Each structure stands twice: as C-alpha cells, then as structure tokens.
C-alpha cells in the first residue's frame, strides 16, 4: 500500500504538473526558496552595509523599515500582497511572485541586521589601520572588514535561509502548489494515509534543510 501510494503520487509530490508546464511540489519549493533566498541575501547585504556606511537620515529610514517588516507575520504579508494589492492599487501579481517577494523582503530585513552586527563586530582598530594605509572607507570595507565579517555572518545567513525555506510552505494560503500544498491535496484525496504522506513531507524538508546546513558548514571551512 505504501508502495502504490508512492508510485501514484511521488512525481506529483516532487515536481507537480511539470510536464504540463506547471511546476509544483518539492521543485517549486526549491525554486521559490532559491529565488527568494538570493534576493533576500542581496537585499540584506545592501541594507546592512547601508546601515553601517550611510548617513544618520538614511539609517533612520532603514531602521524604521526593518522594524516594520520584522513586526509583520510572513503569512499576513503574503495574504496582503495577493488579495489586497489588486483591490487597493489594481496591481495584480501572480501567486508565486507574491510569495517570492514577501519572503525576500522580510528575510532581507532580518539579514540586514546580521550584516550590520557582523560589520560592527570587527574591531575599530582594523578600520583605523586601513585608513592609516591610505584606504578610503569603502576600500577598507571591501578589502579589510567584509572578508572576516562575512565569514562571521555565515551561520546567521544559513539560519535565515533555513527559516525562509520552511516559510515557503506558507504559500499554501494563496493556493501556490508548493510541497506542503500538494501533500495536502494528496492527503485529502487518499484520506487514510496522513501519517505516511506528512512523514514523507517532513523527510523532504529535513533533507533540504540539512543539505543547506551542510553546504553552509563547508563554506565556513573554506579559506577566504
């Protein structure tokens, strides 16, 4: 029975209706997480550097933005973007893009704080030594501060990426057919195998997250 269950549904769980041009399941979860993760990392880096290097006014604006974003549940942001943006402004964003954007923005806010903390953690002496060598502030940041700072930030980045990957399951609220959503669909049809289906789901997420963790640890050991 477990074998038939697997045989009938595994392809749908893994990549949805890919053959009909509608990727779903684990594949879509991966795609959403990758896209949102890259955007969030970029946003977090830019935001964090701006928090350290920007003037007081820019910092105040960014700080407020980060505070607001950190105070909003991801689920609500997704719901907002999907159902309320069209009503308020007539902007219609497809479900998948809504989820990517919401996850990217919120995680960028969190990451910018990690980046700022990582840069702050490098001693003042390093900045002064770089300037004594005739470097500008930006040169000092690029060549002296960021290399060790980034390495120190890596664990919090991996943390955030894992959170993001798991949060992608919230896409169900707007009917995006990611991993959790298709598992629920299958469970609703098969009815009596929730343990097996959601067990498989847990294994899927566990594999994804531990791979990410392993990659993070390997990257942490690499020479700069």
């Amino acid at each position, binding site marked *: 029975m477990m074998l038939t269950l697997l045989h009938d549904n595994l392809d749908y769980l893994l990549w949805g209706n890919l053959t009909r041009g509608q990727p779903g399941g684990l594949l879509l979860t991966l795609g959403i997480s990758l896209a949102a993760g890259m955007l969030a990392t970029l946003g977090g880096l830019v935001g964090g550097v701006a928090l350290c290097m920007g003037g007081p006014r820019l910092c105040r604006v960014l700080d407020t933005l980060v505070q607001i974003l950190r105070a909003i549940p991801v689920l609500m942001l997704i719901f907002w973007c999907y159902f309320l943006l069209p*009503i308020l402004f007539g902007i219609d964003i497809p479900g998948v893009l809504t989820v990517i954007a919401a996850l990217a923005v919120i995680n960028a806010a969190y990451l910018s704080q990690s980046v700022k903390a990582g840069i702050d953690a490098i001693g003042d002496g390093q900045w002064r030594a770089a300037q004594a060598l005739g470097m500008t502030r930006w040169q000092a940041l690029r060549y002296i501060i960021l290399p060790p700072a980034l390495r120190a930030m890596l664990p919090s980045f991996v943390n955030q990426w894992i959170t993001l990957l798991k949060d992608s399951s919230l896409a169900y609220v707007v009917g995006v057919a990611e991993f959790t959503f298709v598992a629920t669909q299958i469970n609703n049809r098969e009815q009596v195998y929730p343990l097996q289906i959601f067990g498989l789901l847990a294994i899927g997420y566990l594999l994804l997250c531990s791979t990410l963790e392993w990659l993070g640890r390997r990257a942490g050991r690499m020479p700069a």
Partner: protein
Amino acid sequence: MKTPSLLLALTLLGTAGHALADRLDDIKKAGVLRVAAFDSNPPFGFLDAQTHQISGLDVEVAQAIAKKLQVKLELVATNPANRIPLLVAGKADLVAANFTVTDERKKQVDFSLPYFASGQQFIARKGSLSKPEQLAGLRVGVDKGTTQEIYLREKYSKTTVVAYDDTPLAFTALRNGNVQAISQDGSKLAALLANAPDKAKYELAPFTLTREYQAIGLPKGEARLTKTVNDTLVELEKSGQARKIYDRWFGPKTKAPLPRDFKIGDAA
C-alpha cells in the same frame, strides 16, 4: 487566520471602488476564463489521481461556460474560505466551488441561477448520531467559512464547532477522535464517505438540517457575464447535458448514488 474579519476588510476595501472595464470583454480579450474550483472536495472539485488535474462536477460546469464563451479554461485551486477573496480581488472571474447562495454572501458577490441543491448533513461513527437533539454537547468539525459552520454556530449554541481547512481534514479529525461528527452538504459527505477506505465504520446521520442551493459566484455588478453564465446553465438543462454531468458524479452507477431532485431553473 480570522476569516470573518478578513472578509470584512476585503469588503470595505472593495467598496472603495475601482473602475474596471466590463469583465466579459476582459475575459474574451484575454481568451482565458479563470475559475476558482475546489481541489479537495470530491466529486465537485478534486485532484484526479491519474491526470493530477482538478476535475469534478463543478469543473464540468465551468468547462461548459468556457466553451460558450469560446475561451480557454484556467482553474484556480481554492478552499472554502478563499472563494470570496479570490473574486473580490479579481484573481478569478468565477467561482465554481459548491458555492452556497446566502444573503450574507450576496452583499459581496453575485450568484448565477443555482445548478445544484443539497442540505446540511453529518457524518459520525455508526449508530452514534441519529437526531439533531444529540448535537448538543458534541464537538462537530466543519469547513472554515462555510454555511454549515455559520448555521451550527447560530442555531446550536451547545455544540462545539471546530473549523478545518477542508472536509477531508475534518474527516481526519473525526477518525482521530478530535471531533465526534463532521458537517457539510449531504451530497459532498456522501461522496466523501463513498471514497473513504474505512467507510464501514461511519455513516451519514439520517437527518437533514437545511435546504441549500449552490450556484456560480461572480464579481459584483457584472450583468453581462452573469447573463452569459445563466444562459449557459439553462441551455445545459435544456439539452440534457446538466443531467449527464450530474449522473457522471451522482448517477446510479457511481460510488455515491444520489437521486437528482433539483433541476436548473427550479429556484432563482
């Protein structure tokens, strides 16, 4: 997620108003009719095991409307609670998801002629529920945002209502003992029970609380689209196609036979 308050917010925002061209023209121009259908409520809308596509009675009605409009049908998977938000936000042109007509909902969306009728019934362990009076003190599972939830909360204050995302999930709760009964349209429950591998342990309680009509949900104020949908439904009945669709899912040869006691046009 608190559905009522979200719905309220959506309605308030919706009344703020936004100028849109006639939806019927938009659909024809796009060449696509976007219809919200259930993906977890056999036989109205469910994920077909072989094709992995949404199919069912509601989907066949939607197909007929798309054919009449001569456009492609695009299905948007929905659960009960998302039906009105999808329409109000313009994410779907129509809702064909066992959508019961109520006065409350008419404030936010328009309805076509009803194309299905049923009543609120219950599934419970065999022999455990035989009359409505027994509902007092029971924990009853319902689908979030359905008429059954509202009715039970209003009329059966001694019953504890537990709301789930969809009916199969409520059934899982019944199996696990989280609730002692679940409530939905009788037709939906009959089909759900027929498909359940462990159906021998459960039964449809032998009473019906209400008479309800299901129709296609439309955005407010789209008179031409509403007329096209109504015309299609009337034609379906006239040509005998409506009966054929019904028989395919509830006819004598199906897993959950249910005599057809309602024709399109019987109720407005």
